[in-house]
């Protein structure tokens, strides 16, 4: 009953065509079909944010989006954003300021932070905390993550 469906998407700038099961989530598709394992699978019901990816330029939950819904879209993952250098300053600040410990939340956290700074180049700490509230980190206590995002926002404004 569950026929496979052919989808075509731009993933990190590359055109990809695959047959997928309708029930496959976008994050499972990226990890299992395309071996892009930077996006992580955590809670699988939209709470933890570890699976955050970009769809048509906006962050979404990879576990609450079906792969079939990505047909005809542009998908960007932490691999693509790392390669393009778009989030290099965020990645550097996360390392420098100890905002990465186990690293499980980091890809989702970085992509979320990138969207925040796109939409609001000068967020205060409360706005940063609200924006990343959908991304769990069980190591850092968030303080250093907020520090890193705040630092990059300031560095970008100063440069």
């Amino acid at each position, binding site marked *: *009953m*569950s*026929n496979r*469906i052919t989808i075509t998407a731009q993933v990190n700038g590359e055109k990809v065509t695959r047959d997928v*099961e*309708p*029930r496959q*989530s976008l994050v*499972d598709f990226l990890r299992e079909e395309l071996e892009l394992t930077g996006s992580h699978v955590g809670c*699988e*019901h*939209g709470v933890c*944010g570890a699976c*955050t990816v970009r*769809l048509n330029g*906006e*962050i*979404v*939950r990879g*576990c*609450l*989006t*079906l792969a*079939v*819904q990505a047909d005809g879209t542009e998908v960007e993952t932490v691999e693509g954003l790392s390669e393009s250098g778009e989030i290099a300053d965020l990645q550097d600040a996360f390392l420098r300021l100890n905002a990465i410990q186990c690293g499980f939340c980091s890809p989702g956290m970085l992509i*979320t932070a990138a*969207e*925040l700074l796109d939409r609001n180049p000068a967020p205060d700490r409360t706005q940063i*905390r*609200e*924006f990343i*509230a*959908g*991304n769990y980190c069980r190591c850092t206590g968030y303080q250093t993550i907020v520090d890193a995002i705040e630092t990059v926002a300031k560095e970008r404004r100063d440069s």
Partner: protein
Amino acid sequence: MKPSPFAYAKPADLAEALRLKADHGDDGTFIAGGQSLVATLNMRLSSPEILIDIGGVAELSGIEVSDGQVRIGALTRHRDLEDSAQIQTHAPLIAEAITQVAHPAIRNRGTIGGSIAFADPAAELPACILALDGAIEIAGADGRRKVAAGDFFKGLYETDLGAGEMITAVEFAADSDDWRTGFDELARRHGDYAMAGLAARLRMDGEAVAEARLVYFAVGDKPMLAAGAGGELTGNSLSPETIEAAAASLDNDLEPFDDLHSSAAMKLHLARELTRRVLTQIAGGAP
């Protein structure tokens, strides 16, 4: 967890979507943003045979304001409401509420029609639409009909939607200058489902409240319009005594039940506290 297998169809227009739904009946489920539905699929709380993806039905999207009426297409995303200058001007209640709906990544996909059709008693938008005294436009095999928000929400995840029907839009009157609005909720983490929330709209006649629509959410099986508390406000100015009387009368208006995170007594306490906070804030902003 992973969902049970299902088939998938993506109709190009409303007629085809309704036809597919009629063909599959209860075995077919519409999916819009999917931000509640996919979670229930992943947890196997629901297992439809086919998902009918209405994401491609362009006519269901967009915000229009004309003749003092606001019309929001069912597929309009939370993010679109958040970024809309028209919503900011004509429906400040929604503008205030929308930033508390889940998280940015979820607001980028979740839709107003989906939130209203799902009718989670802890959701913000159903409460707002009821506070706005809005109407839900519904399409089915027999054409379109409109239902007042007060008649639409029936109970826990239960609405007036029939088996073959779909929400196409919500409509309400744009707020005129004499309306004051306020919104607040208490959640364990910003963006999580509320333990209690209040969407408030007051029509002022000078210093006095002429009409009050206080809608509480996450404190019952559906959004609750508090008639007693509203009655305490009507005809009076928003003095601390009036506000306290409104808060006290919630004991009669609301009958919350325990949930995972809060007892009924705690929810009632939170609802009273929200009443004080929101009405005091409105009083401060009144002319």
